[in-house]
């Protein structure tokens, strides 16, 4: 028989290291003579998309195309230490360093532009610095040239520190984290009671990311997280016995495939964080966390069986179904 259920899972996640562990980041922005821009930061993009959003942030501040920026990252000889890509901290910490550095450069350039144009209230957009008068504007390129000619400093390094104060070691009381990410997901599942197989029909994910710097990238994080969370809940398991590994290859270790992927509806919720860049918080880890509990609660809704030992693979689910049957027979 096939039984269906709906379950909810939610979470909060402390962004950054917390607990007085040093949590710093840095970015350097340099404007070349022709107005092209080099950004340097020690932050690592290992596929999650931080390089893209850094370019978007700097592009936004300086009013230049995001993909014209030369971004050099994660090189201990040429980039400033930005800390690791962990703890869903990159957007929040390094993003702030990017915005700070860009604003510092912009401030200098703006004062030069004000001097050239004789106007205040300038905006940086579409590769130009514009006043309210159409004839009083200067291209980013020409402004950069002028800055260089005048010997104005247009290299800026920004430092961002979100290290929190330590909590009380005996009670753990205190400001543990600089901020938190928040998320809730629904899972609709169908359980085959004969085989114990759980099929996830649909995941509906609602993630508060403060501000989505790149919405489709956020959705990508959510969709990847959902699959990784689904694998955790249902089929992935490293088995060790007596210190020996029993699942030593991808032939034994069952991650979800594209054929197992459920419908995933992502909803981006934006409750701005006052200290995040444009209000943004991290999403890297929150993306994964609610999926498994939502699936487990949906299984419980379908079968009236609470899985307390993971994973909810066919063998474990079938065992629980058989045990429940026996109990009901006995009573």
């Amino acid at each position, binding site marked *: 028989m096939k039984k269906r259920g709906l379950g909810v899972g939610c979470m909060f996640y402390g962004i950054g290291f917390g607990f007085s562990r040093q949590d710093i980041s840095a970015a350097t922005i340099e404007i070349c003579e022709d107005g092209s821009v080099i950004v340097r930061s020690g932050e*690592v993009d*290992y596929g999650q998309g931080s390089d*893209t959003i850094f370019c978007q942030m700097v592009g936004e501040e300086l009013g230049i195309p995001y993909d014209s920026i030369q971004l050099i990252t994660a090189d201990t000889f040429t980039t400033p230490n930005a800390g690791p890509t962990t703890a869903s901290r990159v957007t929040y910490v390094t993003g702030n360093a990017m915005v700070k550095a860009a604003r510092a450069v912009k401030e200098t350039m703006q004062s030069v532009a004000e001097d050239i144009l004789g106007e205040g209230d300038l905006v940086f957009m579409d590769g130009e610095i514009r006043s309210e008068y159409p004839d009083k504007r200067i291209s980013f390129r020409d402004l950069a040239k002028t800055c260089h000619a005048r010997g104005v400093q247009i290299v800026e390094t920004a430092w961002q520190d979100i290290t929190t104060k330590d909590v009380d070691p005996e009670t753990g009381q205190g400001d543990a984290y600089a901020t938190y990410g928040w998320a809730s997901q629904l899972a*609709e599942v169908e359980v085959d009671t004969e085989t114990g197989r759980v099929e996830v029909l649909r995941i509906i994910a609602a993630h508060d990311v403060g501000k989505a710097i790149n919405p489709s990238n956020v959705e990508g994080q959510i969709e990847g997280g959902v699959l990784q969370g689904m694998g955790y809940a249902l089929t992935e398991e490293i088995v060790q016995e007596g210190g020996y590994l029993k699942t*030593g*290859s991808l032939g034994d270790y069952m991650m979800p495939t594209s054929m197992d992927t459920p419908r995933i509806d992502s909803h981006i919720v934006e409750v701005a964080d006052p200290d995040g860049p444009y209000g943004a918080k991290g999403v890297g880890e929150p993306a994964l966390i609610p999926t498994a509990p939502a699936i487990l609660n949906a299984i419980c809704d379908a079968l009236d069986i609470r899985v307390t030992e993971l994973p909810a693979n066919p063998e474990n689910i079938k065992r629980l179904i058989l045990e429940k049957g026996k109990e009901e027979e006995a009573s």
Partner: protein
Amino acid sequence: MFPLRSERFQGKFNNPGIQRGDHSVEKEEFTCVGHSVLKVDALDKVLGRAVYSEDMTFPNMLHGKVLRAGVPHAIIENIDISAAKAMKGVACVLTAKDIPGENLFGIAFQDQWALAEEKVRYIGEPVALVAAKNEEIARDAAKAIKVTYKELPVVTNPHEGLGENAPKVHEKGNLILHSKTRKGDVEEGFRQAHVIVENTYKTHVQDHAYIETESGVGKVDEHGNLVVWSANQCPFRDRRQMAVVLGLRENQIRVIRATTGGAFGGKDDVTVEIHIGLMVLATERPVRLVLDREESFLSQTKRHAIEMWTRWGATREGKLCAMEGKVYGDTGAYAGLGPFVVKKCGIHLSGPYYIPHVKVDSYSVYTNNIMASAMRGFGVLQSSVAHNAQMDELARRLNINPLQFRLMNALDRGLSTATGQEFQAGIGIKATLEKLKEVVMKDPSLQKYWKELR
């Protein structure tokens, strides 16, 4: 060989990209931020042009291979490298004796040997390194190294590890870190409870299983500095740990993140960087070291198996009044970031809810299993398995819809977390729950499950 950047981005400026999903907050006037622009590395990845460290090659380059313990807990009685060293094409065979600096590393707790000295503590522990002119010779030479072990009894879970007569994985004892959270008075809290739910949850081990395994390539540059390109999460942390073992100053080590095919926390600890450094320094030739999938499974860090006992109380009105928990994390043979993972699990065990009385103890414990360290979710995933189950069980006994019950208890402005932290803004838990509620209320196919939801 590599395209110029100008070519890469040709015609791709200001691509507005696709826009999907919906947004609860009104769009502000941004030109770039908030837009789904094409990822800057997208073209290189889909066209196969991205250069991973495994794609990098240098003249005279050697191929490295790590000999791993193969036994979970044992004293090393002897290592005989003579046969391996004599093999044609082998450039170096290194053991702990050949380490130029201090044989000790680890991000937070320095408890790990780059190459095992007296003892091995898990099956994947590195014992010796071989660099040879090709991978086959390196593999055969590693097999030709004869290590004599005296096997020791093993610790396979945290409870065993904390037992009085447990074998000691490390001399200082098996408990790595005990963290506490104490808020209010739990006994008083449970006295107010109308329903109490108590359960033990056991989570299992997950592998990061990224598409690219741990890999890197290193050489000495034209100035005599060590350069290593690798798949990593923080070149600076790697550099710090490399400097100690290699006996170099940090400013002599250049670590560059090569294009990396995923990490999920698994490349947070040092993976191949120290070993590459040792082989490059010993041979003064470029060396590449790429783990195959089986070696990655056998030797690299994993997600913690965590056991969580927890007890929650709620009032008749459906307000959480107390929670208590004990968290036991199987950190495996070395600490890595494990103690912080287990601590973070404990801190998040109370979920995104306001609970006035909280008491949690978390224990991170050494065992002879494969190291557990950082993995996407970092202990919070495990805690959410427990607290979401507890919330559903309480909701059921109180006859309240589970989503509604979460909304009733969700953190909000001025309500404190388990560590007593309060925020005045940016608390999004209710907004995400409300969004789900809205979705359910609009969709009859979902509403049928939760007819009671209003």
